[in-house]
């Protein structure tokens, strides 16, 4: 009985220290989350305006041809996948990879991974990685997003890939984050995009619509990637906060149960000792 009690005590101690870690992680995630969410919210307006302008240009000029609007003949896909640098964030990483498996089924594809977990995941599966120089999501800044956009534009112009898509986690709310995908290139989907617009008449493009379009596309892609990355980071922190909150609660419950068990065992051992003493006293 005494050895059993010792084991329970040890277990309680280990749970307590785990709980301390999960609680600390939860607090860190919660404090970082506010900033990350603000950043994600800030990016949205510029992205929306850019997108609307590109739709406008492609709608007004039915005859115009841009390298980026035509789908190339290549059947290969390139996925830009954004996941986290670390685990301990509930289903954040695995949900995203599940979505990726679903999306890439039956396709011949390469990836451009953002995030350590993504790099590890695709290296393990021997998928061709375009570049792993953007492995740490936490370190990626706006300049890197432009480099990524330029890489994407370059490989697309060369005709290496027929389609390029972005897979990330959308921040729905503090409690819900959804893995999502959006097409990056070609921009042929812009023509179909329905948008009721105010009659703004003819717009003058300088030097001409194609040049403006070609100059704006890489910026639009960078904005899209930057926005998606900010959303993903906010999602990761929110997921980690929820997961660590649940872990802390579970640890608390386990501690309560073990404390009850420990007290019962202690009481039982005392009772047993008394019984033994009484029996001994009776014997004499």
């Amino acid at each position, binding site marked *: 009985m005494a050895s059993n009690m010792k084991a329970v005590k040890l277990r309680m101690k280990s749970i307590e220290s785990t709980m301390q870690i999960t609680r600390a992680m939860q607090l860190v995630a919660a404090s970082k989350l506010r900033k990350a969410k603000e950043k994600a919210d800030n990016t949205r307006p510029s992205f929306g305006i850019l997108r609307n*302008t590109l739709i406008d240009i492609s709608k007004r000029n039915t005859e115009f041809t841009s390298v980026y609007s035509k789908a190339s003949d290549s059947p290969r896909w390139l996925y830009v996948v954004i996941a986290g640098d670390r685990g301990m964030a509930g289903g954040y990483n695995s949900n995203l990879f599940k979505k990726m498996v679903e999306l890439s089924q039956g396709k011949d594809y390469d990836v451009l991974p953002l995030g350590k977990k993504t790099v590890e995941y695709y290296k393990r599966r021997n998928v061709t990685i375009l570049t792993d120089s953007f492995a740490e999501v936490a370190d990626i800044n706006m300049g890197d997003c*432009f480099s990524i956009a330029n890489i994407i534009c370059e490989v697309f112009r060369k005709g290496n890939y027929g389609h390029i898509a972005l897979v990330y986690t959308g921040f729905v709310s503090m409690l819900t984050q959804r893995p999502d995908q959006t097409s990056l290139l070609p921009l042929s989907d812009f023509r179909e995009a329905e948008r009721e617009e105010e009659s703004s008449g003819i717009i*003058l493009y*300088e030097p001409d619509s194609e040049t*403006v379009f070609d100059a*704006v596309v890489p910026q639009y892609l960078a904005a899209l990637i930057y926005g998606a990355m900010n959303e993903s980071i906010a999602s990761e922190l929110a997921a980690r906060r929820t997961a660590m909150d649940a872990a802390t609660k579970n640890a608390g419950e386990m501690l309560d149960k073990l404390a009850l068990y420990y007290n019962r065992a202690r009481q039982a051992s005392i009772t047993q000792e008394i019984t033994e003493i009484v029996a001994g006293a009776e014997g004499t």
Partner: protein
Amino acid sequence: MAATFHLQIVSLDGVEFDGMAQQVSCRTIDGEMAVLAHHINYCTAITVGKAVVVLEDGTRRESACVGGMLTMVNNECRLIANTWEWAEEIDVDRARTALAKTEVKLRDASLGESSRRAAQLKKRRAELRIRIAEENGRA
């Protein structure tokens, strides 16, 4: 009083300016240009350069503007920049460090074509930020 128009300046960091202005000028891919009220509906792309906004009350504000686009539709002007730093917000020390770093990088003969281009662009941005800060008496 000069005619004004509604100007919105948005960068990837959020809304930088939203209000009435008399004039906005910046460097486009086609050269320097300025937009006044009642400009024809217009759209162009912006490169690295100085941008100047003349506010409703005639105050002049300068900024370092990098990339993006400018649209003027029905007297509503939108300037979407990749980065936009008002002269008073520029971190001169950071710009100087960036400039020094890129200069060292550019001296490296083994630098690849794309990284050389990226470094040159970075250098131009740093030079622009320093120039604007200096012109506004901040350095």
